[in-house]
């Protein structure tokens, strides 16, 4: 029977591949999102630039700004994954063909890779522009990974919910930020620790716990959100 022609994973990977193939054809995320991230980055560092930031205040302020840039860039790019499906009406064909959990997994993988791409793009430039000297870059990378994972997981589920509502843009920020704020507050604290060279406390574990619970909630709730 065709049912076992390919597994659940192949379906998820097909969705993931489709997202990036469409992305390379339109270059939407790479262009607008990349530019969005850099404009916020420039605005931030220009405002700090001439005055400069003393190292002590720097370690307090700069991690906050980094995560603000990442949050807003992700919030600009991630909802598109579902909003566009509803707007171009491709959602109907997708609803009929795809297994919900595989679809969510594919979209989540796309969100993750997009967020990590953003982080890899923005962070080095941010560190260079603000001449931030990071004592333990390894920890910073770990925090970026865990924080980025949470950003993508939370945003993907909320995007699926608002895609079927009217005022999508504003609704996404209103609904996503309270979910992402706890994650961000911890990520900012850990990033400060990374810059200052403190060891990662239990907070990194709690960050991963939050990531895991949001992801599990995502997989459990997505079928209910996606189907009638």
């Amino acid at each position, binding site marked *: 029977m065709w049912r076992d022609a390919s597994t659940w994973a192949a379906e998820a990977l097909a969705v993931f591949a489709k997202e990036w193939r469409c992305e390379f054809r339109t270059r939407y995320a790479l262009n607008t999102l990349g530019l969005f991230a850099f404009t916020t980055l420039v605005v931030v560092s220009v405002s700090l630039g001439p005055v400069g930031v003393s190292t002590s205040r720097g370690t307090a302020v700069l991690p906050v700004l980094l995560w603000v840039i990442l949050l807003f860039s992700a919030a600009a790019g991630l909802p598109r994954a579902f909003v566009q499906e509803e707007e171009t009406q491709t959602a109907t064909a997708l609803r009929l063909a795809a297994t919900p959990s595989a679809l969510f997994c594919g979209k989540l993988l796309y969100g993750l890779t997009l967020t990590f791409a953003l982080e890899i793009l923005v962070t080095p430039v941010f560190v260079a522009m603000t001449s931030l000297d990071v004592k333990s870059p390894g920890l910073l990378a770990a925090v970026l990974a865990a924080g980025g994972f949470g950003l993508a997981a939370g945003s993907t589920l909320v995007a699926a*919910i608002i895609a079927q509502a009217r*005022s999508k843009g504003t*609704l996404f920020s*209103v609904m996503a930020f309270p979910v992402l704020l706890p994650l961000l*507050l*911890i990520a900012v604290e850990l990033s400060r620790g990374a810059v200052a060279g403190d060891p990662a406390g*239990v907070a990194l574990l709690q960050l991963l716990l939050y990531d895991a619970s949001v992801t599990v909630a995502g997989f459990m709730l997505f079928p209910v959100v996606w189907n009638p």
Partner: protein
Amino acid sequence: MEPLKKLLAGLLWLWMSAVIAGAFLYAPLARGFIGQSSRILFFHVPMAWVSFVAFIAAGIWSLRFLYGGRQPRHDRAAAAAVELGLTFGVLATVTGALWARVMWGAYWNWDPRQTSIVVALLFYGAYLALRSSLEDRDQRARLSAAYAVLGLVVAPFLFFIMPRIMFSLHPQSVINAQGKVEMEPRMVQVLLAGSAGATALFFWIHNLQCRLAALLERNSAPLE
């Protein structure tokens, strides 16, 4: 059935009256607080507790809606619980700010506990925003239920886990000792009694609100 309800109502009146009297006359003042200001705890904490109970109840009603036959009454119950949770949440925030004003001269200092309750209010405010932006009744019920169930992950994290993380990450930023207030037995009794009474009050008001919502829906729905 009627007399039992009257009896229960009377009992609740008596119970809460005792709590109010106890808060001012029976319970001692907590050490290290200015004047009588620590007494606000007997009202602030129950309100914060009830708003947490309301948000969890909303999540549970949403689960019952989603996986229990998609009955509209569960959706109405969840929405009513969120509305009440927000009301108690705002009251808790205001009493918390008043108390912070007395203790440290500032209504707001983004103390970890203040941060988490505000973010919770933002989350459930977004729940109401979502409900108002969806016209189709079934879609509104289904999508808001999903968000409320997500709240079952977010709310406990906000109310309990995040403050601890922020306290541990920032020992020196602990501006108030609320995190570690030494409670004498009498204070604990009044606090628990107040929380229990407030929870009963919540379910009473919630019951009335659900029945009202049901009436509204029945009158507005076209006759079959």
